[in-house]
């Protein structure tokens, strides 16, 4: 397993003045993996990406690329390329020359002749369905088309790693969804490692092999999308990835948690007796029944139609539950809430850091 690690960050910290932007980041990325750095703005995800790209230097720690320390290597000598947030295309060059930019820089023995450049560029444009756009002016392209040019411009030199800094942020929802699928396809077809930065949890969940959740300069959790969604390590991750109900609970013993004064069966083990815990319940895991059958009972206070489902807020003993269901319960209605034992996610109280 160790030998297919392509990028390894060891104890990376970054400070601007007194402000600690990254705090001891440890992260390895495997070859051909689609890794997403996910977190709210200011969490350090873009800083991490810029350190890997070589645009800024970390205050301390090491960056290894295929086992070699590269902290001192300037960006133009690194075997990775970047897709920038607002594309950063060369507006003085047409589509063809934008994509060919990286190829034309090769000098001496590596110098490519015009025919090869032409072949490679049209192959790339074909990859993103932009064949025939060679002569077009960059500014005449739509946002989605500019995005595609930016992606293949970065791919044309066949980097081992592609860094993507919120590349879909400026696109509308529909286009963003299409591009997500397309990016994933490109990544699988070319077999290149993608390191993708986003604050959009849905994007992260649908594209990634591995998600790295970050907050306040620290890694909160690393895992597959399923892990992150189903087994969030702390309340921050639970809250950031999808919507959650986070309740205070006390762990009575293994598989028994006390919420709102009642003991409830769950599946989590390994806590101390009577330890205060956060209990996370996903809105879609709440089953709505009659008040008598529910674990909790309460009154519906609001109902919103969300397209696929209804979103309801249910007031129970002073706590507002958020529940998703395809059947609407009207505001004012008294209902019961049921949750299956394995849908209670018990986690240690936040503020405690989580390790790898």
């Amino acid at each position, binding site marked *: 397993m160790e030998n297919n690690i392509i990028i390894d960050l060891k104890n990376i910290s970054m400070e601007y003045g007194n402000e600690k932007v990254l705090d001891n980041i440890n992260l390895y990325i495997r070859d051909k993996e689609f890794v997403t750095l996910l977190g709210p703005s200011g969490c350090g995800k873009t800083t991490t990406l810029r350190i890997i*790209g070589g*645009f800024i230097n970390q205050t301390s720690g090491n960056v290894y690329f295929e086992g070699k320390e590269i902290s001192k290597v*300037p*960006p*133009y000598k690194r075997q990775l*390329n*970047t897709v*920038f*947030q*607002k594309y*950063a*295309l*060369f*507006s*003085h*060059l*047409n589509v063809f*020359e934008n994509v060919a*930019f*990286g190829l034309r*820089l*090769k000098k001496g023995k590596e110098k490519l002749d015009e025919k090869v450049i032409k072949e490679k560029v049209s192959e790339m444009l074909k990859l993103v369905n932009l064949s025939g756009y060679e002569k077009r*002016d960059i500014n005449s392209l739509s946002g989605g088309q500019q995005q595609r040019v930016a992606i293949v*411009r*970065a791919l044309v*030199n066949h980097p081992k790693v592609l860094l993507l800094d919120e590349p879909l942020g400026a696109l509308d929802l529909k286009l963003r969804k299409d591009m997500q699928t397309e990016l994933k396809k490109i990544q699988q077809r070319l077999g290149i490692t993608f390191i993708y930065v986003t604050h959009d949890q849905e994007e992260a969940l649908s594209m990634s092999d591995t998600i790295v959740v970050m907050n306040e300069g620290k890694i909160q959790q690393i895992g597959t999308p399923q892990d992150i969604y189903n087994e969030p390590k702390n309340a921050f991750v639970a809250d950031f990835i999808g919507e959650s109900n986070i309740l205070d609970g006390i762990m009575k013993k293994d598989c028994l948690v006390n919420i709102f004064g009642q003991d409830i069966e769950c599946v989590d083990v390994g806590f101390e007796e009577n330890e205060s815990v956060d209990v996370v319940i996903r809105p879609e895991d709440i089953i709505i029944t009659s008040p008598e059958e529910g674990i909790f009972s309460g009154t519906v206070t609001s109902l919103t139609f969300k397209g696929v489902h209804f979103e309801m807020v249910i007031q129970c003993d002073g706590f507002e539950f958020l529940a998703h269901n395809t059947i609407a319960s009207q505001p004012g209605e008294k209902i019961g809430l049921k949750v299956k034992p394995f849908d209670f996610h018990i986690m240690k109280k936040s503020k405690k850091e989580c390790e790898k």
Partner: protein
Amino acid sequence: MKSKSLSIPFLIWAVIFIIIPMIFIIAFAFTDDNFNFTFDNFNHLNRYLPVFLRSLKLSIISTVICLALGYPVGYIISKMSPKVQNVFVLLTMLPMWMNFLLRTYSWIKILNTESGVLNTILSALNLPTIDIMDTQFAIVLGMIYNFLPFMILPIYSVLTKMDEKVIEAAKDLGANNVQVFFKVVLPLSVPGIITGLTMVFVPAISTFIISKLLGGGGANMLIGDLIDMQFLGNAYNPHLGSAISLILMVFILISMGVMRKFDSDEAGGIM
């Protein structure tokens, strides 16, 4: 509708101060003293060809030197911290707030062969004195001194607005600093260069004060002096003056058109 009514003040301005004077100049250029239509004013213009070529030569030299000096200065200022940038931009503009004539007169005090500051210093150091006054060199010096800020400012402006990410993208794709400059920064700053070239070349080719004061007139006379003489000098002939002005204007329009063309062709130009 709204935008139309807002443009009325400008239209009035344009008619009074641009259209009507233009009509006067054209009318004078194509008439004789009795205001009869004639091409006479244009018939003898080849006599002034040497003056015209001299103007062209000196203004091109000045413009090129201004570019060679102005680009690095604009580039260096744009790389400084925002606070320092403001100071340097202010310093660049400061001389322009001083009267143009005064600034040019002060060069006489500096360059004057007998009592000039330059030669006083040179002789005090026991070095040979130099005789620059009333030469074309002095005219070029005066042009550069007066018009250099018009080159620096537009270049600085376009460089400081350049997206840092585009430069990062070039580096990311494998360009070293020299390649980044020639393949990205320079082509993207062409609009600023074009503006600078225009703003230096146009006043330089039509100047008359600089050549009068520093060039001594006569053999160093420029096209601007020639026009000046037709209106205020002994040679009083506003009809000929208008004709020369028209020719100069057409020439400037053509050269600006050529530069604009160069600008729009820029896509992939400098490679």
